[in-house]
């Protein structure tokens, strides 16, 4: 059973830029996708939120592209574009009709090579305001909006790069200067710290020529400096840690976090499978038992974050009903976590079947292919891993799952964040 066979080829320019080309002529669409090896983990104390603010600045123009022109040109050809910042990386992407590939290469190369001449204080002030509004809208003015900050504080010590959030602190964003923009650009936005993937309707030879033409004369930079803080940490927290928040939230919610092996380790696959048994689909244990049978949770969610540094995190959420007791919800969630010790093979098979459909459906979009190929190249130096994803999960045994439950889900490794509606509502 190998449905997954995405063709691709790899190249590397002299300046160190890694290139992945994944041709597929079936639709006249091309996705350009650029991953830079920089994220919030690279921010030292006092500069939190800067990687994300910098991502906004990347849309403020470059030497040959005035402010707003990037958006105008891509929208003019019917294209879509965006960028995201996360803990370990920042990605930039455009999807356009395939005869407009050069436009994307021109725009991306101009800001990789010639961003700084276009920077000024007015643009920085403007985007600082935009980012502070983003923080207000998505975090501060939202019920439960501070959950990630609270949970990361429980899971990671103050000197670990995952202790602080991607959005960062208002004070740090306020303090950012144009000098910070320049030094961040020169340190991290270098071709030798990036992967460029082009997926879709391309002729690989022509595409590589064009990439050489647009990116070839950007100078390589120095190696990226080591991460700030202390990246090594114990595989478990060492105890159960708690944070209980009484606030203006509509429903009680329990969020449990666990340190798990990093995405870079083979053991991460066990975490992914365990998380799928708990929360993937409506036959999963959390949904079946907590939502459907016991009706103690209104909804449940589970994630295994693919983080690279020291330890990643597994998250399980349960949201209760009006007036319900979060302690009972937590007990019920804990029973399911511990009950996973007797996982069955048919549950693993079900999770893999669902994963297969989801992955094939995701790969219908060239943008998604490009994003995954960039990730696997940046993180593992191995874009071909995309075609082996299901095998990797299939290799997880019941013993692996049991070992994972024993080692990672015990009372010595739980971070429990509880939201209690104020006024007893």
């Amino acid at each position, binding site marked *: 059973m190998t449905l997954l066979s995405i063709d691709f080829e790899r190249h590397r320019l002299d300046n160190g830029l890694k290139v992945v080309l994944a041709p597929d002529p079936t639709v006249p669409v091309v996705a350009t996708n650029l991953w830079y090896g920089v994220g919030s983990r690279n921010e030292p104390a006092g500069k939190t939120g800067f990687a994300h603010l910098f991502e906004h600045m990347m849309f403020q123009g470059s030497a040959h592209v005035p402010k707003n022109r990037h958006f105008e040109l891509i929208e003019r050809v019917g294209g879509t574009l965006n960028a995201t910042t996360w803990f370990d990386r920042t990605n930039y992407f455009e999807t356009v009709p395939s005869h407009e590939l050069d436009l994307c290469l021109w725009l991306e190369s*101009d800001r990789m090579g010639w961003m700084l001449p276009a920077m000024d204080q007015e643009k920085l002030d403007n985007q600082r305001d935009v980012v502070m509004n983003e923080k207000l809208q998505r975090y501060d003015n939202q019920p439960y909006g501070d959950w990630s900050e609270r949970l990361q504080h429980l899971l990671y010590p103050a000197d670990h790069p995952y202790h602080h959030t991607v959005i960062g602190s208002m004070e740090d964003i306020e303090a950012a200067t144009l000098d910070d923009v320049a030094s961040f650009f020169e340190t991290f936005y270098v071709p030798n710290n990036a992967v460029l993937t082009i997926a879709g309707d391309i002729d690989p030879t022509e595409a590589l020529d064009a990439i050489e033409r647009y990116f070839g004369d950007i100078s390589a930079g120095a190696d990226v400096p080591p991460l700030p803080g202390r990246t090594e940490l114990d595989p478990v927290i060492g105890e159960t840690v708690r944070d209980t928040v009484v606030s203006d939230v509509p429903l009680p919610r329990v969020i449990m976090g666990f340190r798990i092996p990093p995405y870079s380790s083979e053991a991460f696959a066990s975490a992914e499978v365990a998380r799928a048994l708990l929360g993937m689909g409506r036959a999963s244990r959390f949904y079946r038992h907590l939502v459907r049978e016991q009706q103690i949770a209104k909804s449940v969610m589970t994630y295994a974050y693919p983080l690279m540094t020291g330890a990643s995190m597994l998250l399980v959420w349960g949201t209760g009903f009006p007036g319900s007791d979060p302690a009972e919800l937590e007990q019920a969630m804990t029973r399911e976590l511990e009950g996973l010790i007797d996982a069955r093979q048919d549950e693993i098979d079900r999770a893999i079947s669902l994963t297969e459909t989801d992955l094939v459906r995701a790969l219908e979009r060239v943008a998604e292919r490009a994003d995954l190929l960039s990730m696997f190249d940046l993180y593992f130096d191995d874009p071909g891993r995309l075609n082996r994803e299901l095998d990797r999960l299939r290799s997880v045994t019941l013993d692996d799952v049991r070992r994972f439950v024993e080692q990672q889900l015990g009372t010595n490794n739980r971070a429990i964040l509880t939201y209690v509606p104020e006024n007893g509502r």
Partner: protein
Amino acid sequence: MSALDRSAQPASGTLRDFSFPVVDRQALANGLDLRLARMNRLPVVNVSLFMRASEGALGHDRAGLAVLTSDALEGGTRKRSGSELAESLERIGARLSASAGWEGSTVGMSCLADRLPEAFAIMAEAVREPAFPEDEVRRALDQQLATIRQRQMDPGALATDAARAAYFAADVPYARAVDGTVASIESMSRETLSGYVEANYRPEGGGLVVVGDVELDEVADMASAHFGEWTGTPAHVADFDVRPAHVQRRVILVHRPGAVQSEVRIGHVGASRSIPDYYALSIANMVLGGMFTSRLNLNLREEHGFTYGVRSRFTFRSHPGPFQISTAVGNDVAAAAVREAMSELTLMAEQGPTEEEVSAARDYAAGVFGLQLETSGQIATRVNQLLIYGLADDHYDRYRDDVRAVTADAAAAAAGRYMRPSEAQIVVVGDADAVLQPLEELGLAPVQVVGAD
């Protein structure tokens, strides 16, 4: 390698034309309208069954019944419990979903092509033989009540709810949230749901849309085998006229003590999907607030830094849905943001977009259409639109030409007709201590302050 002239934007390559997939149609004997678009890029299939069992056909006392019924559909069939239903689908990698809205109810399923016969049979069983066990209905009901409660404490949802009620007269279904009220939901039981399905889950006026790696004959056989005996017309019909709640401009401030940001909605009754100037109005709206480089976003975000984002939109339905500008802004600039948004709206309504703006929006609309023909899900969504709004079979074949035919004059005329700043209902959800006085000083209309609960 010769030096590259970076100052010049690259020339475009040669455009490769790409057509909307051929949609085969077959009317089954029971009136079910079967539509199939073949796509064999990857071995996946998307199935959706649309029935005209709509929230728009329900009175206020039954508001949310179609939504609740679709949520409870996963509760099991006469042959399988809810858990068994989930298990039997997920074991073969199939995902089932059900939802309902103003136009009807949709049951969707996606799976790998080799699993289609089995998954299709289970999907049909879920639609034709739902059992609605007592405890599953109770669960769906409690979940929906909790969702309504969550919305009352979410500033964005609160703003949208308050705005809707300000746009539409109280007896128009669109004045309420699509998933009903606490009172309407609390009055429902498993009998209500079974009765609703019996009367309204009927094939006439609906259709079955299949997109993916499968042949028409196969699908027609499956549809006949599982839906052939199914007959009838939905009992409840959406029969109402849309009227505005107010035609004078109003400013409504929903006081949320301590809110660190203000949610803003500005709008009024918009237009239906069937208006002749649909494309012209869509283009005018894109220029106002439907793209990143829209006037609103360039003004409020890129020039003033008031917001993370702002957009405007016409929600086109069978009856005129809302027209609305929405954004979230800092308290200290809430009034200034309202002032700028109103000024952009007024300018667009009075003068329309420029030639250059219309040209850019046309290019965007025509281009992005071609980019969204990649996945079976995207195609299925579009074919469903044909069905739901009764659009011509060649609608998507003509789409790009029709968009490109929009002139600046036509866009200006549509903007003048359907954007009415003098009738705008301006809703702000924020802390009155911070935003009331500046809003009053704008002088747009007297500010009515209401509580959040």
